[in-house]
C-alpha cells in the first residue's frame, strides 16, 4: 500500500486549511475532494469572519479572492403587513483591517486549493473517499474506489454529514433534529445597483438578515449578502420545525415567497438567477461537538460539529479554517516531538484554549433559546406594531408619542410570558 504523511478528506475550508498548513512545512500531504474542484459543491451563506483567523496564515487573507468587506449591517423584521429595518454602519467596520468579508465558495475554495498545490500539497479532485481504513481501532489510511492509501495521520474534514467518519464509528450519527437546512440563490446584479440598494461605497459590502415572516414562524431566517456583482440570497430553516409543520406550510415555496414579499422584492428586482444550492447546517452547537480525535485521525470543520447559529449571524467558515489550522499545527508539533499520537490531545487543547471551542461554549444556550417560535412571530410583529402606531396619523386626535409607544410596549411586552422569555435572553 502506498503511504504518505497525511491524508485530508474533503476540500472545504477546514480540509484546505489543514492541507495548507501541512504542505507549508513540507509534509507529504494529499487532499482528496469528491467534487470536480475544491468548492464546486460547497455552500455557505456568505460571510467569513476574518478577524478571528487573521493571524493564522495572514498571507492568505491578504491575497484571497473575497467578494466585498462587510461594512454595513441590516436586520429586517419582516411581517406580513410591515417591515422594520435596522441599518448599522460604523467607521470601524468600514476601515482596514476589515473584520468580515462576503465570499463565494466556488472562487475561494478553488483559490485556496491552488495555494495548497503551490506549497507542494497534492489536491486530488473527482475522487470520493469511500471509507477509512482501520487497524486495531486506529485509522491507517483511506480507500477510494479500488485504491487504498496509507497515512500516518488522517484529517477528516468531510463536512456536516460526516458519512465516512460516522461509518468508521468516529462520531455518532447526527440527528436530523439538530440540523437546519439552508437553501440559497445566487442572483446577479450590477455592481452599481448593489451599491445603491445597500447604501455602499464602491467595493464595500452589506450583510442583511431577515426574521419573521420569512420562515412563516418556523425556526430560521433569511439572509442576503452582497458579492461583487451578485447577491447570495437564502433561507435557513430548522429541520424539526420544517418537518413538524410540513403539512401546513409549503417549505419549497418559502424562498419564492420571501423573494416576492413586497418589502424584499425591490431588493432583488432585475436580478438574474445564476445558481441554486442547498446544504445542511448543524445547529447542535457546543453539545454537538464529538470527540475531536482518536488514534491516527483528527476531525475538523463541520465534521467536528463546529458551527454556530447566533440568529443574527451563522458562523462555521471561521471555525473550519481555525480547526484546519490547529489540526495541521498539532500534527506538525507532534511529528517534531517524534510522537504522532500526541497530536490528538494537543489539537483538542489548542481548540479548547482558544476562541474556537470557547465561542461555542458561550453560545451553548442559543439552540434552546431559538426553539421558541415566538421569536419568529410575536416579537417581529410587536416591533412592527410599535412603529406602525408611531408613524400613524389619522383624522382622530393623535396620542402623545409616549402613549403611542408605551401602548404597544405594554400590550406586547408587559405580560408574564414575555417577561419570562426576556429574562431568558440573559443566558445567550
Amino acid at each position: 500500500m502506498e503511504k504518505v504523511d497525511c491524508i485530508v478528506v474533503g476540500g472545504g475550508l477546514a480540509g484546505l486549511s489543514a492541507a495548507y498548513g501541512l504542505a507549508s512545512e513540507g509534509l507529504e500531504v494529499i487532499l482528496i475532494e469528491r467534487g470536480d474542484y475544491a468548492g464546486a459543491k460547497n455552500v455557505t451563506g456568505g460571510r467569513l469572519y476574518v478577524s478571528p483567523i487573521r493571524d493564522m496564515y495572514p498571507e492568505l487573507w491578504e491575497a484571497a479572492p473575497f467578494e466585498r468587506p462587510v461594512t454595513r449591517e441590516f436586520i429586517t423584521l419582516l411581517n406580513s403587513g410591515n417591515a422594520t429595518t435596522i441599518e448599522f454602519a460604523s467607521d470601524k467596520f468600514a476601515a482596514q483591517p476589515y473584520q468580515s468579508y462576503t465570499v463565494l465558495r466556488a472562487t475561494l475554495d478553488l483559490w485556496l486549493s491552488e495555494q495548497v498545490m503551490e506549497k507542494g500539497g497534492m489536491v486530488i479532485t473527482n475522487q470520493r473517499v469511500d471509507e477509512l481504513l482501520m487497524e486495531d481501532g486506529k485509522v491507517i489510511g483511506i480507500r477510494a474506489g479500488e485504491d487504498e492509501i496509507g497515512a500516518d495521520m488522517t484529517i477528516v474534514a468531510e463536512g456536516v454529514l460526516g458519512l465516512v467518519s460516522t461509518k468508521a464509528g468516529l462520531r455518532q450519527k447526527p440527528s436530523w433534529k439538530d440540523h437546519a437546512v439552508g437553501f440559497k440563490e445566487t442572483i446577479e446584479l450590477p455592481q452599481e445597483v448593489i451599491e445603491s440598494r445597500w447604501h455602499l461605497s464602491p467595493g464595500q459590502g452589506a450583510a442583511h438578515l431577515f426574521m419573521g415572516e420569512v420562515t412563516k414562524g418556523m425556526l430560521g431566517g433569511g439572509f442576503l449578502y452582497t458579492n461583487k456583482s451578485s447577491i447570495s440570497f437564502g433561507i435557513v430553516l430548522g429541520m424539526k420545525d420544517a418537518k413538524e409543520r410540513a403539512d401546513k406550510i409549503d417549505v419549497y415555496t418559502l424562498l419564492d415567497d420571501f423573494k416576492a414579499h413586497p418589502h424584499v422584492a425591490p431588493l432583488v428586482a432585475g436580478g438574474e438567477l445564476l445558481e441554486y444550492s442547498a446544504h445542511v447546517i448543524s445547529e447542535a452547537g457546543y453539545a454537538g461537538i464529538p470527540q475531536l480525535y482518536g488514534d491516527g485521525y483528527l476531525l475538523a470543520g463541520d465534521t467536528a460539529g463546529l458551527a454556530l447559529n447566533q440568529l443574527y449571524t451563522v458562523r462555521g467558515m471561521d471555525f473550519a479554517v481555525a480547526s484546519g489550522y490547529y489540526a495541521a499545527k498539532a500534527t506538525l508539533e507532534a511529528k517534531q516531538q517524534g510522537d504522532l499520537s500526541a497530536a490528538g490531545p494537543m489539537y483538542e487543547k489548542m481548540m479548547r484554549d482558544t476562541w474556537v471551542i470557547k465561542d461555542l461554549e458561550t453560545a451553548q444556550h442559543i439552540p434552546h433559546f431559538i426553539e421558541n417560535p415566538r421569536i419568529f412571530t410575536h416579537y417581529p410583529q410587536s416591533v412592527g406594531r410599535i412603529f406602525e402606531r408611531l408613524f400613524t396619523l389619522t383624522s382622530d386626535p393623535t396620542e402623545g408619542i409616549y402613549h403611542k409607544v408605551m401602548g404597544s410596549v405594554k400590550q406586547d411586552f408587559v405580560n408574564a410570558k414575555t417577561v419570562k422569555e426576556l429574562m431568558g435572553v440573559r443566558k445567550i
Partner: protein
Amino acid sequence: MKIIVPVKTNPDLQMIRIKNREPILEAVPYKVGDLDKNSVEAALQLQAAVGDTQVVALTIAEGNRKIKDTMKEVLAMGADEAYILSDDALTAADQAGKALALAKAIEKIGGADLIVFAEGSTDNYSGQMGPRVAELLALPEIGYAKKLTVADGKLTAERGMGDLIEVLESSLPAVVTVTSEINEPRIPTLMNIMKAGKKPTTEWTLGDVGLDAAAVAPQKAVLSNLAEEQQRKNVMIEGSAEEQCAALIDALIKDGVLEA
C-alpha cells in the same frame, strides 16, 4: 509502437454562461475536451492490446494558463508522457496555424506509428486537425473511426456509414480520427492521479518547434459565430392549471406537434 494523441483543452462548457449572446469565459476552468478523452482511451486500449507501446499526449495551450494541471488528467488516464506547446501567438491562430504547430511538434517528438485525434474539438468542432496534420506530415488518414485494431504493422478501422460499416486498412504510420461511440473513456483512479504528477511533461514554445508568430498568424478572421436567432411564438396561456393544460394540448394539436 508509439502513439501520439493530440488533445485540446477547452473551457468547461458546463460552467459557461451566455450573456448578451456572448459566452462569459472569465474564471471558467479548462478541461480536457470530452471528445479528446475518447481518443486518449482509444490509444490506451491499443496500448493494452498491442503491448510495448508508448502513448504520448500533445496539446497546444490556447489561453489555458494552467495547462500543465489540466493535462494531468490525460496522464492520470494512463498516457505516459505529455508535451505542451504554449505561445500567445497560438491563441489567435486559426486551424491552419494550429495544425502546422501540431505537425511540427509531432516531428520534433520524433514522429509516431499512429496519431489518434478526436473527430473534432469539444468546443468548436471544426474537425480539421486530423486531416490537416495528416496532409502536412504526408501520412494516410482515416476519419471518424468507431473501431480500431492494429496488427501485423497495419491499422484496421471501422467507420459507420449509416446502414453499413466500412472497414479500411492502412499502413503505418497513419493518422486516424475517432468518434465518441468508439469507447467509454475511463475515469482516472486515485492511484493513477497520484502517479500522473510524476510523469514527464515537456513544455515548448513556438521557437522550440522551429516556428514563429508569423508562421501561425491567422489567414482568416471570424466575424461572427452566433447561432441562428430563432423567433419564438411567445404564446402565453392563462387560467387554472387544468385550463392551461387543456389549452396547451389544443395548441400543440393545432401546431401538429400532437395528434388529435
